């Protein structure tokens, strides 16, 4: 074997450094960037990296949350506290408003995830955001595996996977014409395990439902769904209290919990390292609709 260089970064240091470089490129080259922030672990890590990228200055971006109206209250609380602590401006695109005034209709299955696309695109157009940071990771899903770090969206917010710009070295090309915008994914190369190891190493705070807690749930299609005002138990379903945690955090009506005793970061890292099912497979009803559910949503302008 050849000699090992005397200086080498760990995989977490390497990933952090790459993400910070990406975030700074956007700050330098775009006029109105925004960070999508849901209070989910990936967006929390992304915001943490943005804070590090600009220290000791403030994060020079606004924060946008697309609120389905079915969010976990503790996650919304966490979102508001975080934005307040960092002195950021929070914009909310509300799916509920769209349903209330008839611009969107509730789906038969009650899932609101696909309904987020229109409020998201409208908010981008209204605020004239030209770069939109998303916490998506390529290891999450097969359509995401093909996504660029800088991903161009046309005037309709659409993604054209067959016609993407080649992305060479670390020279990102963010040029776009008026009306187009660029989705930027600083966590592209992170895996679920990297995210958790980083949360542990950096002591990043998360909404409490990522750790084991008692919750009333029903079992539906092999998933554990929380029982609450937006997601009542259906006829014939039995409500039980179980010790669970969430691997992903999204719309209450379609994000499942997993049975878990993991109450600390270390427990969760051990659990994720040993898991046999992907986080979307375990916890997202909407991605089970078809082989190409995510691809179809992404083409229309979804996160």
């Amino acid at each position, binding site marked *: 074997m050849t000699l090992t260089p005397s*200086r080498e970064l760990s995989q977490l240091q390497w990933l952090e450094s790459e993400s910070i470089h990406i975030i700074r490129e956007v700050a330098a080259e775009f006029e109105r960037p925004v960070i999508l922030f849901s209070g989910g672990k990936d967006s929390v890590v992304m915001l943490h990296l943005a804070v590090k990228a600009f220290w000791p200055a403030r994060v020079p971006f606004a924060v946008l949350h697309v609120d389905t109206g079915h969010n976990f209250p503790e996650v919304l609380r966490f979102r508001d506290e975080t934005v307040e602590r960092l002195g950021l401006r929070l914009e909310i695109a509300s799916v509920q408003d769209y349903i209330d005034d008839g611009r969107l209709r509730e789906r038969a299955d009650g899932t609101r995830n696909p309904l987020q696309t229109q409020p998201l695109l409208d908010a981008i157009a209204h605020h004239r955001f030209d770069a939109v940071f998303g916490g998506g990771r390529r290891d999450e899903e097969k359509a995401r595996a093909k996504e660029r770090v800088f991903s161009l969206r046309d005037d309709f917010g659409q993604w054209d996977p067959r016609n993407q710009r080649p992305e060479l070295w*670390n*020279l990102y090309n963010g040029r776009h014409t008026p009306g187009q915008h660029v989705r930027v994914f600083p966590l*592209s190369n992170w895996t679920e395990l990297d995210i958790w190891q980083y949360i542990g190493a950096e002591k990043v705070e998360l909404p409490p439902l990522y750790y084991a807690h008692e919750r009333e749930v029903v079992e539906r299609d092999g998933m554990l769904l929380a029982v609450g005002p937006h997601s009542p138990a259906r006829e014939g379903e039995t409500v039980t209290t179980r010790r669970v945690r969430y691997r992903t955090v999204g719309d209450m009506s379609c994000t499942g919990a997993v049975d878990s005793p993991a109450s600390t970061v270390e427990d969760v890292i051990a659990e994720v390292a040993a898991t046999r099912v992907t986080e979307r497979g375990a916890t997202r009803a909407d991605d089970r609709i078809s082989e190409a559910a995510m691809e179809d949503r992404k083409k229309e302008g979804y996160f």
Partner: protein
Amino acid sequence: MSTLLRLATAGSVDDGKSTLVGRLLYDSKSVLADQFDAVERVSRDRGLASADLALLTDGLRSEREQGITIDVAYRYFATANRTFILADCPGHVQYTRNTVTGASTADVVVLLVDVRKGLQEQTRRHLAVASLLRVPHVVVVVNKIDLVDYDHDTYTRVSDEVIAAARDLGMPEALTLPVSALEGDNVVTRSARTPWYDGPSLLELLEGLPAKGDPDHEPLRFPVQLVIRPQSAADERYRDYRGYAGQVASGVVRVGDAVAVLPGGRSSTVVGIDQAGQELDEAFAPQSVTLRLADDIDISRGDLIAAAADPPEPVHDVDGTVAWLADHALRPGMKVLLKHGTRTVQALVRTISGRLDLDATELRPADALELNDIGHVTLRLASPIPAEPYVRARSTGAFLLVDAHDGTTLAAGMVGDALLATATV
């Protein structure tokens, strides 16, 4: 400590690349139950006796429908002490575009050759691209060894042929190994069916490769991304803070180092290296940090902070090798944007001095460069850039050509004559 290695795959259609990638993911236990269930289900629907691991790498709907791979996909797997990022590059159409993209960030190119077919034109082209882009390592997987009954002589013949071709292209250290991706021989574990091969399995080999150059032996290069001046910082201590944020592109920077700021040429001394509130004594490539300098000089995005003892020369004229990635041709007289480090300048294409014939590995006269052509051009820049030959500095010798009107990425560029270096080494 787990370290990271970036791989890019290359190979012709039907060399078994998808099967190899699927096998690497599956045997390194990076495939989870629900992903494997889906592959088994589809395999059964197609009437296959066992799960087709190649399906693990299927991405988009049209790829599944057409049974081809359209674009580079990124895969992730890990062993106890190494994390791998794999750029899975499709082998057929637009091979240059995809292979150049994958190879630009790769530490290792994993090139597949079908042992029954031996060295193909495509193999030579992929080797040429790996050499041109100065990928530190090339590993040639001689695949489908099961189909020649694990025959040592057949393997040796192909292996010798590929090693000779790699040497001709300036890569004396290409490694080869016998593999059956389908059967799993020598992919993750060493196979008993190739007793004549005493080297490591592919995964063992990848675990042991050094990632990249040693920062200690490279000159400091630090492209400034932005200036951090927190005038409204809540903390009074930082009211007068002025730092230069960037990622160390090569070398090591230490507090006390004398530096030159290019292209202006002013000089100063590093007085602080900050990493989000932590003061460091030194930083090395590819760390993202913020530098503070002793002198209050005019520095902005696009400037390059370099070792004062060894600064690159700012130039108005650039000779470069470009891989042309756009549908319309490159012709002399075209005006484009050139992005180098964190600086973007206008550029005029003055001449095309030749197009690379990858099969003969020589430069032939050309009036234009078409999609997937690699050629040599001279560019006149509106303002100077501190360019240095790509063969000397992979991270600071690279540039992009961009369409000024619609923003399309037109070409991957390398400062200097990367072609000559490739063909004549």
